[in-house]
């Protein structure tokens, strides 16, 4: 049977399936539940310096089974109280990656350092969250800011730092290169796509925040394109995210260049049991497809073919 261990910037995972940030990530028992269901590891909810309630409801909208729109507004208990949740997950042996956000480089460094002290194996910087006052969406979409933030955190901590990139950009490669220059040990992509739903009967946006983020199957083609482009340009490992629900979805991400993947919305549509399906199904499917291991599949769609132009047609 094909080996499915993944090595992400030095972190060894029993399988490449990580719980995506923001799903089941507020409580330590949920993190543990995802791991026990079969995940190789978990990424916490994005944690900030102080508690945040997030936006009022409605915070979610689903589109059949192909899409999910959310504007949670980064609710989180804050870095002062969150360590007890990490501790609970770690006590159960769960490999935890700590997701953090802040309004500027110093803020990221500060929360990142405090997250490090909880014993997480790595940090994931949510550089795709744009409502911190004074910085706005520039944090995540300005390569200069990305580099500055990553560098500040890398200097402040000893564990590997992953930069989570936004797909809401003209040039995700520039963002990835900036993260790499800043010292990121890897990049994660994608976060949600800026999107919205309007109720025609009520003549108003559905989400309390108006704008939200699209996730689920609908964004898989977008995530694949992002990972593909990043793989061609970067040397650090890539964590693929967006619309993964089946083993084949995850292998498509591996072929595009992802060394591990995160799974989010599929938990809402199919329950946390999706991690069991994925982890049980992966070895046999890799065998069928002729791969000796997960690692063997990483980037394999790039081999031996003339690289496509990075142009968008139509």
């Amino acid at each position, binding site marked *: 049977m094909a080996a499915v261990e993944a090595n992400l910037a030095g972190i060894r995972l029993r399988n490449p399936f990580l719980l995506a940030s*923001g*799903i*089941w*990530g*507020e*409580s330590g*028992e*949920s993190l*543990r*539940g995802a791991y026990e269901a079969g995940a190789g590891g978990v990424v916490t*909810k994005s944690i900030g310096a102080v*508690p*945040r*309630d*997030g936006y*009022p*409801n*409605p*915070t*979610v*909208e*689903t589109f059949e089974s192909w899409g999910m729109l*959310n504007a*949670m507004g980064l*609710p*989180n*208990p*804050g870095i002062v*109280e969150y360590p007890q949740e990490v501790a609970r997950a770690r006590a159960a042996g769960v490999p935890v990656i700590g997701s953090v956000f802040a309004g500027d480089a110093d803020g990221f460094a500060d929360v990142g350092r405090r997250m490090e002290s909880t014993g997480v194996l790595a940090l994931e910087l949510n550089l795709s969250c744009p409502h911190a006052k004074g910085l706005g969406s520039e944090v995540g979409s300005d390569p200069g800011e990305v580099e500055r933030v990553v560098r500040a955190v890398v200097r402040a901590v000893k564990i590997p730092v992953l930069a989570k990139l936004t797909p809401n950009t003209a040039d995700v490669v520039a963002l990835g290169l900036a993260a790499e220059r800043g010292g990121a040990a890897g990049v994660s992509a994608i976060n949600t796509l800026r999107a919205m739903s309007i*109720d025609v*009967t*009520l003549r*108003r946006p*559905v989400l*309390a925040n108006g704008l939200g983020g699209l996730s689920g199957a609908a964004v898989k083609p977008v995530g694949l394109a992002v990972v593909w482009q990043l793989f061609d340009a970067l040397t650090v490992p890539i964590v693929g995210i967006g619309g993964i629900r089946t083993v084949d979805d995850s292998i498509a991400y591996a072929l595009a260049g992802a060394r591990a993947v995160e799974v*989010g*919305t599929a*938990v*809402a549509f199919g*329950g*946390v049991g999706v991690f069991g399906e994925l982890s049980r199904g992966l070895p046999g499917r890799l065998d069928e497809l002729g791969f000796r291991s997960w690692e063997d599949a990483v980037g394999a769609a790039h081999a031996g073919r003339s690289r496509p132009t990075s142009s968008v047609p139509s």
Partner: protein
Amino acid sequence: MRQIVRVTERVQETPSTVTLRFDHAGAAAPGQFVMLWLPGDDELPMSLSWVGDRKGVTVKAMGDTSRRILDIPVGTRLGVRGPYGTKFDLSRQRVLLVGGGSGTAVLAPAAEAALAQGAHVTAALGATTANELLFEDRLRSAGAKIAVATDDGTVGHHGFVTELADRLLHEATFDVVWTCGPEKMMRKVADSGRSVGAPVVFSVERHMKCALGMCDACSLGPFHVCVDGPVFPAEQIARLDEFGRFKRDPSGRLVAA
């Protein structure tokens, strides 16, 4: 997945509690809840106090949003997601209900369904005062035996409904106890049930956002109340440290219940 409905009827059940009825075709079973959206305002989980195609929710004034829901007139448009969550097992023959305050809202349709299937239902209803008792008439006319308790003694047992429930459990044999109300109350009911060997089933409330088992807002130990609940066997829940002691606030912090 969200349906827009219009309030077709508004019933003032008690000074603090109103039932809103609306047409909604989704299949629903007693125990389940909907996410009820007051457009321009919040969206809240509400148990269905009426299942069937003319559904209803029964809302008690607690905080700002529920207070505003109380004031909306017939004809108001509401958003409805769901029904979501687990159901009461209606196959038991001898049922004891223990309802505290608006907790009775979710028990009433379960009692009616059980009675319609030939079950014997006894309802122990608690409230702060006589005119806050919910669905006493509804349950009586459906065929339930009623016992009431009020904090101020204006009617029935002067004291907690848990005391009433404990007495009933020791006087007669029940196949199941369904309870909904404050968690400390439900924990006491669980203790009484255990002492006489009657299985107890809780309907639990937690802060909810997605209702899809995703956002973790409603986590309670290893469970997510929105998909694993709200109806739980007491033994799954009552032993959790958190239960009756802590809940999570909207930020996800554990705060005193």
